[in-house]
């Protein structure tokens, strides 16, 4: 009796937090899920079925392609950069500066990033102008910056620093003793990397790649600022569905598209969680 009263009193100060999250996170999420399987209170699978339309499938496919390409490029180049970082002394100014810059750049998404690339390789961008006057090469071309190809380049800008932030701790966690043990048993540098460090780092690398995939898959602002019309990728299709659903006569299709996004990101994040658990077995 007293125990129950005590735990109720202990739980009471947590109520505002739970209520807030229910209102502003849980209810919107449930609204999306509910809205994607019902229309005006009656349940049906019309909107889920509409996800199979060629336009919706095409957007999903391009989103997956964009995310996969930028995740792999970001992961590989980010791993190279991390490797360059750990080769400096842990306390060096270089390492602190580079890691600080990376943590800032990984946050640097959104509208500003779109404008940064417009200023660089847009129609009258700095690099475009430079190439035009110095060698006559037309960097702008047919406006590829504003297509999925352009998004690949732009997304790489925040994917590489994110990879550094996520992957660096694993690389730093490799112990000197492991290398010494390998070397004292006669391993070459190549053998150490392929048979000791490689297998140890593989889950961390794959996990980070999945995180990068999710990061790019759900990114909206940069794409929205760059691509002002058309909906080549899923987030932009959600924009169109939200802003013009009356015209399309597909009330609530945005719900189904958002639901699709939840599913994809959730699958990726579960995979990420499993791989992180595996890495944390030896890290620290």
């Amino acid at each position, binding site marked *: 009796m007293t125990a129950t009263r005590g735990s109720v009193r202990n739980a009471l100060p*947590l109520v505002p937090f739970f209520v807030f999250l229910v209102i502003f996170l849980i209810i919107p999420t449930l609204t999306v899920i509910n809205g994607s399987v019902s229309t005006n209170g009656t349940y049906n699978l019309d909107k889920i079925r509409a996800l199979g339309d060629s336009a919706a499938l095409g957007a999903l496919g391009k989103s997956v392609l964009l995310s996969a390409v930028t995740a792999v490029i970001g992961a590989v180049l980010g791993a190279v950069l991390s490797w360059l970082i750990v080769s400096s002394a842990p306390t060096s100014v270089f390492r602190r500066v580079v890691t600080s810059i990376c943590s800032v750049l990984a*946050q640097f998404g959104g*509208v500003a990033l779109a404008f940064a690339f417009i*200023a660089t390789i847009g129609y009258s961008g*700095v690099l475009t102008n430079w190439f035009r006057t110095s060698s006559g090469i037309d960097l702008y071309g047919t406006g590829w910056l504003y297509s999925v190809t352009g998004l690949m380049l732009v997304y790489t800008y925040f994917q590489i620093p994110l990879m550094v932030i996520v992957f660096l701790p694993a690389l*730093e966690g490799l112990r000197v003793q492991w*290398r010494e043990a390998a070397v004292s048993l006669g391993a070459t540098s190549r053998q150490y990397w392929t048979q000791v460090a490689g297998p140890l780092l593989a889950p961390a690398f794959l996990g980070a790649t999945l995180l990068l995939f999710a990061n790019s898959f759900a990114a909206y602002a940069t794409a929205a600022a760059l691509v002002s019309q058309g909906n080549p990728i899923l987030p932009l299709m959600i924009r169109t569905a*939200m802003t013009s659903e009356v015209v399309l006569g597909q009330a609530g299709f945005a719900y189904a598209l958002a639901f699709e996004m939840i599913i994809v990101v959730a699958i990726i994040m579960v995979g990420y969680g499993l791989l992180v658990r595996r890495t944390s077995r030896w890290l620290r």
Partner: protein
Amino acid sequence: MSAATTGPSGWKRALLLVPFAIFFFLPLYAMADFSTRTPTGQGRTLQGWRNLVADDTLYSAILISLGLAVLTVALMLLLLVPTMIWVRLRAPWATRIIEFLCLLPLTIPALVIVVGMRDVYLWVTWIFGDSALTLAFVYTVLVLPYAYRAIDGSLSSIDVKTLSEAARSLGAGWGTTIMRVVVPNIWSGILSAAFISIAVVLGEYTIASLAGYQNLQVVIVAIGKADGMTAVAASLATLLFGFVLLLVLSVVTGRRPDSPTAPEPATEGSTP
């Protein structure tokens, strides 16, 4: 530790770093160049930068975004700090669920939240009026993962239980214990949580634009359709502000700010 992974040294490393440096700094340089061009191509002008305060729409959007940043930080601290301290002291059973809820916005992108928040916001605008400042509620959710990690980090580094038992046995109430004993000891965590939240809110576009509110980023995009120079200047200004905030933070706290392990929502701020 790093000796475990002998990398290249000296000039070799420098050489390999050059392409990265060009890739990351060229767009920043280009923004500075682009935002100070004159229409004729002769000389330089600061008109784009002057428009930050001279252009009424832009200036009021800047004020809105700053107001949102303040409100979001206040709401986030009010919600998170007492809850997290209380969980450590009296409700350890709730640790996992609080952590799960705080990190959940990493899995539920801002784009999904804005699609589903219409019903909730009908109530919000009915109670608080139809102001862009009401976005502070949903922005608080967006910044939770980053804020949680920052505060959790510094709470872990002190012995909350002993501190508060000492305070309580000397006659302090819960309010005094939290405000005057625990909070001063987790100051660096609170500061990082606040700074990261400000950076996220100032860069937020996704929710504001799709919910139909005019914050800084929404206005920048609108201006960019006609006046690239001003839009680039404003983008670079927010960016530099964010750089300064986060760099100051990493110097002050002497460690890397907590990694955003997620969609920017990112961050995209949120969102890329």
